[in-house]
């Protein structure tokens, strides 16, 4: 039996160097005891600082990086057997690299738990260190903190404080080691005692005020607090001395809030409320396109308002000759509050321009003003509006038709055609010829541009694109005859 005594409590590289020598020497885990500088010697121990191996040179295989990562952290655990465990695993990994992935292997379970205990303690150190300010006669400010970690985590945690508090000079003292940052260099020294750090700090009273005020007595969950902020840390947390009183007073404070009914509102509130009531009365009827545009934002004629961002009203000149009516705003239209700005809108713009219709002189809108969708993870999937929604929204489309008074209306897709005609419409039957409407406007029907985007077959898409452009060309020709 050999014993390896390490110089440091938590130096992974030191352990690795020794472990590599043992592996080379073919020393099995059963033949070796590991000790850190704090652990007691065993009864039948033969100390051996230098690893002796009688000329043996066993090849050392590559070790899985996952093991190295776990071991580097677990080495900071206070369990005296940590080095033995690591060497035992290292030995086994030589024969079977796969066991690192066997989450149910008892040694892997133990290693994983150790590693997570160390990480947790390091995390709690980042959380629960409380610096106290020390200002010397020359006005120089320094900070110091006392912390009592369960594991040897100061060395692995101090760089965090360096990254966070580069512009401060600080020291962290623990029973086993201490760390110092002077603004340029991070150094480590011996352990100390609580008396090395000042007992108070001028800002602590403000902090305690905050702690007591941010606590909601109606939500008392003491067990939850204790599981995250274990009682063992409390003695070094200035705010913790308030906890017992806060808990004792919680029921009372909650009851007081519940029992105190509303008092008479202050006078400034009553004055403002009066002014707002007058404003509301002055809201007028819809007598213009602008009124309609404002009013549509409050529309609750169908349930679609509930999940859409906003109503998307039509856009374009108020005296436009041509009005294009699509189905409903899509994802991007809904976010931007403007019609035809998404992918289908781009197809539409390009086609209109190609046939020679001036895009800036047409009015574009939709049969339904709110976006209907189904949430799927981080995406919203378009859903076709139903007949009820289309009928409810006809109110707004009719207002747009009444105020803009277009000579030509182009229904893009079946939903728009159905809304305008008041009956189920089939595009293939209606497209290609003007339809005279009762109000003496002329209706053209064609596909919705989004239909073109959904055709997977390239040749078919080209055919449909050409048909779409033909339909738009008919609109253009008709429009030209009106103006001549």
């Amino acid at each position, binding site marked *: 039996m050999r014993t390896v005594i390490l110089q440091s409590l938590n130096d992974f590289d030191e352990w690795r160097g020794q472990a590599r020598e043992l592996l080379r020497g073919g020393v099995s885990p059963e033949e070796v005891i590991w000790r850190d500088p704090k652990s007691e010697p065993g009864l039948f121990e033969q100390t051996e600082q230098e690893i002796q191996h009688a000329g043996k040179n066993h090849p050392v295989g590559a070790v899985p990086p996952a093991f190295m990562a776990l071991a580097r952290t677990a080495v900071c655990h206070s369990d005296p057997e940590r080095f033995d465990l690591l060497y035992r695993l290292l030995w086994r990994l030589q024969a079977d690299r796969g066991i690192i992935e066997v989450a149910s292997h008892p040694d892997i379970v133990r290693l994983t738990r150790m590693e997570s205990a160390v990480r947790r303690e390091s995390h709690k150190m980042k959380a629960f260190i409380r610096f106290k300010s020390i200002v010397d006669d020359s006005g120089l400010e320094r900070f110091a903190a006392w912390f009592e970690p369960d594991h040897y985590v100061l060395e692995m945690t101090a760089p965090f404080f360096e990254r*966070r508090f*580069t*512009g401060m000079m600080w020291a962290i003292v623990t029973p086993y080691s201490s760390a110092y940052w002077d603004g340029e260099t991070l150094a480590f020294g011996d352990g100390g005692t609580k008396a090395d750090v000042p007992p108070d700090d001028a*800002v602590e009273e403000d902090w305690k005020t905050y702690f007591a*005020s941010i606590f909601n007595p*109606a939500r008392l969950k003491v067990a939850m*607090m204790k599981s995250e902020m274990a009682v063992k840390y409390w003695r070094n947390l200035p705010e913790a001395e308030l906890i017992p009183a806060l808990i004792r007073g919680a029921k009372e404070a909650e009851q007081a809030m*519940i029992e105190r009914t509303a*008092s008479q509102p*202050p006078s400034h509130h009553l004055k403002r409320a009066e002014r707002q009531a007058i404003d509301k009365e002055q809201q007028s009827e819809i007598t213009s396109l602008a009124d309609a545009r404002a009013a549509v934002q409050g529309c609750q004629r169908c349930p679609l308002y509930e999940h859409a961002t906003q109503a998307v009203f039509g856009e374009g000149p108020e005296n436009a000759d041509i009005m294009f009516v699509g189905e409903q705003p899509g994802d991007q239209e809904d976010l931007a509050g403007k019609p035809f700005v998404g992918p289908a809108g781009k197809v539409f713009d390009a086609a209109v321009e190609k046939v020679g219709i001036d895009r800036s002189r047409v009015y574009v809108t939709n049969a339904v003003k709110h976006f209907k969708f189904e949430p799927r993870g981080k995406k919203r999937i378009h859903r076709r509006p139903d007949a009820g929604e289309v009928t409810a929204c006809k109110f707004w489309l009719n207002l747009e038709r009444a105020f803009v008074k277009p000579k030509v209306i182009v229904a893009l897709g079946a939903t728009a055609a159905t809304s305008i005609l008041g009956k189920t419409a089939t595009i293939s039957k209606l497209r290609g010829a003007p339809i005279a409407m009762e109000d003496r406007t002329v209706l053209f029907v064609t596909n919705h541009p989004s239909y073109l985007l959904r055709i997977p077959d390239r040749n078919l898409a080209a055919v449909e694109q050409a048909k779409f452009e033909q339909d738009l060309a008919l609109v253009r020709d008709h429009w030209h005859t009106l103006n001549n």
Partner: protein
Amino acid sequence: MAALTLRRKLAVLSDAAKYDASCASSGTEKRDSRQSGGIGSTEGSGICHSYAPDGRCISLLKILLTNFCVYDCVYCVNRSSSNVERARFSVEEVVRLTLDFYKRNYIEGLFLSSGIIRSPDYTMEELVRVARSLRQDHSFGGYIHLKVIPNAAPEILAEAGRWADRLSTNIEMPTDVGLETFAPEKRPGEIRTAMANIRGKLAEAKPDRKAKAQPAKFAPAGQSTQMIVGADKADDNAILTRAAGLYSGYKLRRVYYSAFSPIPDSSARLPLKAPPLMREHRLYQADWLIRFYGFDVPEIVSGGSDGLLDLAIDPKLAWALTQRQKFPVDINRADKELLLRVPGLGTRSVERIIATRRHHSLRLDDLALIAGSIDKVRPFVETVDWTPGGLTDDHKLRARLEPQPEQLRLF
């Protein structure tokens, strides 16, 4: 009126801020103070520097700039008709408190909100001034969360996103009708439009690997929102449907659910009782299942009754008990999607199961080691040496798995 001391203001304005559930400081870019020589860092995962006896994490200095407010939202402690004590910090006071707390390692940063004073633009501009001063005058690299005031001008919003890690706009109520009833001055459409604008700016700020000139930074920790649970009549179905809509539309990092808790000087229109904390907890679990476990809202809600989640058991178990024909699941063969639906198995456990079974078939003992606790898992799985037999369909199964009511533990 005598001037309030800074400490009194701190008491008033943190008391007024405690109804906002969020205290997260995670998910932002990596920063540290070694380049600036100042103070402040952010490293991905957040740190809870303390816990109040309500079990909630304290990671940020969460305060209002002022609790004066021109709005009269019934559920809000700061509504204009309330007689609570009012206070207002100066920009410099907030900056100093943040730095003093930060240097002592009490906090990870600042979460600043405000009552609406004068106008949305004015209020938002004041919040931005605090953030700008921290970043520019003090090289502060810690976390900053700013509340967005709906209807504030786009250029103010752009500057807010330049200094802040996270922005948030509270949707407040699960339904628009609820909001109109309780917050007459707020327009639900305007709140969602504010979120849409933030989403647009977040998309613009996405770094383009190929482009030479990178876009200006905008709120690297994204946006979040909060819904109040139990103030109005909305059921869990309405709440989760609303949340799913918001996640899908505005790329929210988080939706916070805040059990309505009684406030001082409260309106008679509100339920004056203890906050529904268990309901809030179940909603968070359901939210998690929807985002990370492949469940959709109707599935989750089907585990409860009348549009409400089961309060006694967790939503995954509740769902599984109504879908027993889908079980038992073979731990050694089932795909990941199916394993994620087994009660008692989390994402970590599922990953470990998949890694381990590449090496050997799992026995029930192996599963117990991986899952930590096996009671909830056992009736729903098969392993090499275990099959639940009639246990899966046992009509007493629910009663066996239901946690026994725990004695409230105090000191």
